[in-house]
């Protein structure tokens, strides 16, 4: 049977409203016929209507169903049901027919795509020629996309960043859509980030630097694609991932490198843009010293895989995706529960921490968001010189033992949290580095126990 913690369940909520409503549903008086077995948990929930809602969740992938009219997945009833499960309030029981029917229907749907490949049983790949043809056809589409994008980029560079910055959103969006048509989602992502830099230029005086940095990376991606045969393996893998070639989780778990360790969740960021929910975690292997990133996305009715419990360290086996750095990982196997975070890892100063980032760039030159860990830094609050409001006060900074400092670009609440945690004394910090500023994710009084701060 699958076990969840309350935090994990609430992490699956499609939005804040559902997360807020869920605990109110996790009350036994609301439920009848509660039960669970090895595959699922179910119950009938008394809602505002006359008849109760039938609600169930499958353990295999966290999918839920509920007869309520809500279009959220999981709905508040399903979250309430999982919260009851997390609290140990659901007894083992015999599965009712409606749950069996649902699970069977799901299993049938899951198998259908596999059916066209009966050749698998013989051990040979399904029609290798057809596969090669499909791959070549996609590569040709990407070729065309890259060529179009290169011309567009050259035009942009000729016209100048100032002119590009003044372009309407649709101008960028059109190119991003062209890249999606060319099956190069990664390139589309770059174009969208450029559009974002243009749109938020009013708040970021360093926007030309950021835009040129992204343009340089994107141009390098296009150039590298045209010479992909001459590029050594690990960088070529990174190139394909950055362009938008993905690997199925099944392929990765079959052939990827596995690492078993106690993984500390040193970063946990959830976002929801209305269409897509995403989760990014930074996982640090306590004995191997490996840092990987866990990414999960869910659109519409898909459940969001919750990752490891935030703010804890959990024994787990992860499998690395080949390609971009730091490695993306999927979680193959995890133990129940977890321990609170211990002391944080970290380099003695920024320079040594950043040299780790340079090592990543040497293999994956597009590694633009990387984790940085540094010990004993001082939090510097913004300087506002007495007697006047400066044009741009020095922002929040983290200064290391050698006196060098990087700016913090997180929301002010995060900086205040760090400031309070430090109370004027050195702290250890783990954060994301985007090449310009640091976004702290976890912190600890020097040598003390870490906690998430973002």
């Amino acid at each position: 049977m699958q076990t969840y913690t309350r935090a994990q369940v609430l992490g699956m909520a499609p939005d804040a409203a559902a997360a807020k409503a869920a605990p109110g549903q996790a009350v036994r008086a609301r439920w009848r016929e509660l039960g669970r077995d090895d595959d699922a948990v179910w119950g009938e929930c008394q809602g505002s209507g006359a008849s109760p809602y039938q609600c169930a969740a499958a353990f295999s992938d966290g999918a839920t169903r509920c007869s309520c009219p809500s279009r959220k997945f999981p709905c508040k009833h399903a979250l309430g049901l999982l919260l009851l499960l997390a609290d140990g309030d659901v007894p083992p029981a015999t599965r009712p027919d409606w749950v069996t029917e649902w699970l069977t229907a799901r299993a049938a749907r899951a198998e259908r795509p596999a059916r066209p490949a009966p050749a698998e049983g013989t051990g040979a790949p399904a029609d290798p020629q057809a596969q090669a043809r499909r791959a070549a056809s996609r590569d040709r589409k990407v070729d065309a996309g890259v060529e179009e994008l290169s011309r567009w980029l050259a035009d942009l560079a000729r016209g100048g960043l100032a002119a590009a910055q003044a372009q309407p959103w649709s101008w960028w969006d059109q190119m991003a859509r062209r890249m999606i048509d060319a099956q190069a989602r990664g390139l589309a992502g770059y174009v969208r980030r450029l559009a974002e830099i243009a749109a938020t230029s009013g708040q970021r005086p360093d926007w030309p630097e950021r835009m040129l940095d992204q343009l340089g990376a994107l141009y390098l991606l296009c150039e590298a694609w045209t010479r992909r045969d001459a590029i050594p393996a690990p960088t070529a893998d990174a190139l394909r991932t950055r362009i938008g070639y993905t690997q199925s989780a099944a392929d990765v778990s079959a052939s990827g490198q596995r690492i078993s360790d106690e993984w500390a969740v040193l970063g946990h960021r959830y976002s929801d843009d209305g269409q897509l929910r995403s989760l990014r975690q930074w996982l640090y292997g306590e004995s191997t010293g490996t840092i990987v990133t866990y990414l999960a996305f869910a659109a519409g009715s898909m459940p969001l895989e919750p990752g490891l419990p935030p703010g804890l360290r959990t024994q787990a086996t992860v499998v690395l995706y080949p390609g971009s750095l730091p490695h993306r990982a999927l979680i193959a196997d995890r133990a129940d529960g977890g321990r609170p975070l211990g002391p944080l890892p970290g380099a003695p100063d920024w320079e040594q921490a950043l040299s780790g980032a340079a090592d990543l760039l040497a293999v994956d030159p597009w590694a633009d968001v990387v984790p940085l860990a540094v010990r004993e830094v001082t939090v510097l609050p913004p300087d506002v010189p007495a007697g006047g409001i400066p044009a741009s006060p020095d922002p929040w900074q983290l200064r290391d033992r050698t006196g060098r400092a990087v700016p913090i670009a997180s929301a002010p609440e995060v900086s205040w949290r760090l400031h309070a945690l430090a109370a004027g004394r050195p702290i250890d910090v783990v954060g994301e580095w985007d090449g310009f500023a640091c976004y702290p994710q976890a912190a600890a009084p020097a040598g003390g126990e870490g906690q998430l701060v973002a």
Partner: protein
Amino acid sequence: MTSQWSELVDAAVVGAGRAAAPQPAGPLASLRLSDAQDGAGLLAAAAAASRARRAGFRPPDMQARTAPEPADPDGRRTVGVAARRRLAELLAAGSTELLVEWVSVLGEGGMRPPDAHLPALLTAATYSESLRDALLPVLGPLAAWLAAANPAWSWAGAAPAASGGVAAAGPPDMDTWTTQSHRARRELLELARQTDPAAARELVAATWASDSHRDRAAFIAGLATGLGPDDEELLERAMKDTRGEVRRAAADLLARLPASRFAGRATERAASAVQVQRAITGRHLVVTPPADITDEMAGDCITGSPPAGTGRQAWVLQQIVAVAPASWWVQYAGLSPAQLLTMSTRTEWGTALRAGWSDAAIRDADAPWLAAFLDSPGAAPGVSEASLLSALPAAARDGWLRQHPDSVRFATLEEIPAPWSAALSEVVRSKIAAIVSADPGRSVESRRLLRLAALRLNPPAIAVLARGDEPPGPPAVAPGEAQIHPRLLESWASLLATLSVRAAIRRELAEEPAS
């Protein structure tokens, strides 16, 4: 490298069509990038230079910036991981009532708020007075340190001098007393009166001459905490104040000191205005309101301007009756409050007498008088059951409510602050058991009652109620799920959810920190 990069950025802003892109020098020169002076050339240079900038990035030297002095250490222990996570959830959800409770339980345990969450707590408390009142006693040196850095939290700046933890509370030094804001000084006085009333009074006396009338009135009112005979001298001084609100605040407290000269004057006046006479028909009250207001009466804040609808003489009589201590009337007349109430109905001044007695009863929290008024509803016009009950000492109030389940209503209970006693919680719990299974004819009232109870029932009642939630078997007290009226199901569920969060708050804060 840095200057090369910024030259390249400058060129890129205007565009390769207008300015020639600077070609990389140094190690990057060997790359022999496209020499075309066009967009592609600029992009190739940007690709190389941007990657080089990232790989070779050295943060600037910032030794010149001054770091803040460290905050004073706080010796109190802090909370474990589960409690910290709960606090973060409550802060994110903005549940002020539960935050107040979390902070109060924290303070009872002598713990400090978790450092990293203090800024969010301070921000939440800046917008909520109830949370601020709960938070102030548990703030330590870190709060003062943060308040010094953020003007929005300046209200927290005074706290550590006064508290530094609950145990260390004592009178602030004269410097702190004279330099703080009005609000902070009121809070300092309140804390100081709780531990050392005499020293606190000395503070008020020391700055009396220089404080504003607003300060003086507030500080006199603040002496209500820990009020005693030694306060008379300062209160008499306040009775000579030029401002009416200061005099009224002092008169209110002097009336609560039965041995004071003020009370002596008040009882003399009361005795001459109201007499008990024995006749063949039994005892009765003879009421003779004074013809006019003497200087002495005016000095004791008795006014001749009645509120609309009250006659002048009745108003003067009411005030004369009210300023005498409630308990004095029983001694003076040799009659119980109930007997006095009955007799008052036989004089033409009855309404004024009862209005005065009810004022005195509520001011003095006089249990026999309050009980008498509660037992004869409507005796004092305009005085609600809720205000009588909330003046009654807790034990008497809870006992009275137990005998009068019909009075267990939202309007009454709302006046009784958390935490409720075990006895009161028991009474409310029975009431809830009765209403959730019956057809709640007044379901708005029932829903409000359930919501209030969710936040104020005390811990033992939480446990028993929560057991009522458990099928199967006969429910302990509350009805089982099947018996809950559908119109109250939603409120019932959220009652249980809130109670279980409150139980969890206590459990988590009782746990030792993980290390």
